[in-house]
Structure formats: structure tokens, C-alpha cells
């Protein structure tokens, strides 16, 4: 998978390494900015309020 990406990147090894770094940073940014904020309320790690059993307002 990563090998396939590497083979399809243009340029020499340095250019490829640079593009890879940019791609990795872009993925991390997307995770922190969009994916994790979306996923967090769905996971039971950070509810702090006491609630009715139905949890209607959450």
C-alpha cells in the first residue's frame, strides 16, 4: 500500500520523501480537525454529566 504510493510519487527519493511528509501531515490535520471531533462524542470516554437513563439530550 505505502510501497504503491511511493512508487507512484514523482521525482527522486528526496522529492518523494518531501511529498510523503506533506501527505502525512495533511492526514494528521484531517484527523485532528474533522475525524476525531466527529468520533469523540460517539465514544464513551468523556461524558461528565449525570443523566437520565435515556440520555435524551446527549
Amino acid at each position, binding site marked *: 500500500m505505502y510501497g504503491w504510493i511511493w512508487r507512484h510519487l514523482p521525482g527522486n527519493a528526496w522529492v518523494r520523501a518531501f511529498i510523503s511528509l506533506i501527505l502525512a501531515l495533511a492526514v*494528521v490535520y484531517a484527523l485532528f480537525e474533522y475525524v476525531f471531533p466527529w468520533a469523540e462524542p460517539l465514544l464513551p470516554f*468523556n*461524558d*461528565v454529566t449525570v443523566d437520565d437513563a435515556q440520555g435524551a*439530550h*446527549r
Partner: protein
Amino acid sequence: MRSSIESDRTDGAGSVAATKTQDRTGEESVTAPRRRKRGIIATTVGVFGELLITAGVVLGLFVAYSLWWTNVVADREAGKQGDAVRDRWAGGPGALDTKDGVGFLHVPAMKNGEVLVKKGTEGSILNKGVAGYYTDPVKSALPSDDKGNFTLAAHRDGHGAKFHNIDKIKKGDPIVFETKDSWYVYKTFAILPETSKYNVEVLDAVPKESGAEKPGRYITLTTCTPVYTSDYRYIVWGELDRVEKVDNQRTPPAELG
């Protein structure tokens, strides 16, 4: 390896070599697709392994996000909102003002400075590094009310972690709530280190579980416990000790000295 054995054997008689060649071509036609199939399996396993590594890295990033990044974002946001409220209060003491928050919570035992308090306990509010007072399932009273329970919630970890050190509060410790015109000084009188997350009775106007029996002016802090999870809730109750008027210098009460 096989080819070297074969070449050894083909060193023998010519007739043997001839049959061997035939044999070899026949063998090759069998080996080639088998080799390609093995290649597919190897590639599949390789991609699967890469996916597993990726999943591990993503989970690690999620931990970093939850415990570090949300704090960075929330503290920045809370600082901005707190400054906005302070700016509006700069004119001196005045009537209760609930626009961006009702006031600041100071709990010296938690050693985290002041916590802005806003209305509501939805994630969208608490995630900005503030404490919220309950509107649901039990509506909170305000400190200025004659009787009632001022009930607050904030995060234990991540998103500012404003109640992270709630376990450092001991009985008798002061909990001070600052509004535009008053300092409400509460004294901690009961702690419930672990209760069900469905135990909404802790928010009652007279929270029986704390030992309180008659209507009074109470404050309730709720957050999750144990740290890093939210299986249970940690509750701290305080009762109003006295109210001090805010002076022009906003001199804090002795408890915050």
C-alpha cells in the same frame, strides 16, 4: 535452489538432459502461476499489516488528541471567553450579567485558577474549557437565588480538564464563585467519590445523599471518574458560607488570598 539441482543433473547423459528440459518447461508452466498466487497472498498480508500499523498510529494520535490537543484548543477558547467577560466587567460591579457566562469559579484546592461558568452542560459548551450549570435533567438554581442548588459540570480530562483535580478537594475547603457584583463563598461539606452516571438526585435542590436535609444554598460539582474514563461520576457538595460584595478593586475574599 531447484534449478541448481536440475543443472547438476543435466550434467549427465544427453537423453536425460533432453527429458529434463521438457520436464523443466512443463514445471515452469506450473510454477509461474503458483508463484504469482504466492505474490498475491504476500501482497494481501503486507497490505493487511500496513493497515494494522496505520490503525495503531491513528489510535495513538487519538489519545494525543484527547489528552493534549483538546486542552490546547479549550484553554485558548476559555481564555478568550474569560477575557471578554472580564472586559465587560471592567466598569466595576453591577447586576448579574449572563451573556457570555455567569461568572468564575475559584477552587484553591484544584490549583487551576479561575474557571468560567456558562449556561448548559452540552458538549458544545463544556468542550470550550468552561464549566456549565445544569439546565437538564434537573434545572440548576443560581447562586443569587434564595434557596436551591447551583449544579456544575466540567471535564475531568481533555477539553481544558477544568475539574481534573476534583479529588484534591477536602471537606471544609472553600469553593468561591465570583459574579459581576458578588463573591459567593461556599464550604465543601460532602464528597461522593463514585456514583452512577444516572444518579440525577445529586442535582436536587436538597441533595439528600450529601446529608443535607433542609433547603439551603448549595453548590454541586460533578465530573467523571476514574480519570480518563467516564464510567462513574464524582460529586462534591458545598453550602454557602457567606456573600461578599465586590468592591471597585475586585478584592478577592480571604479564601483566595
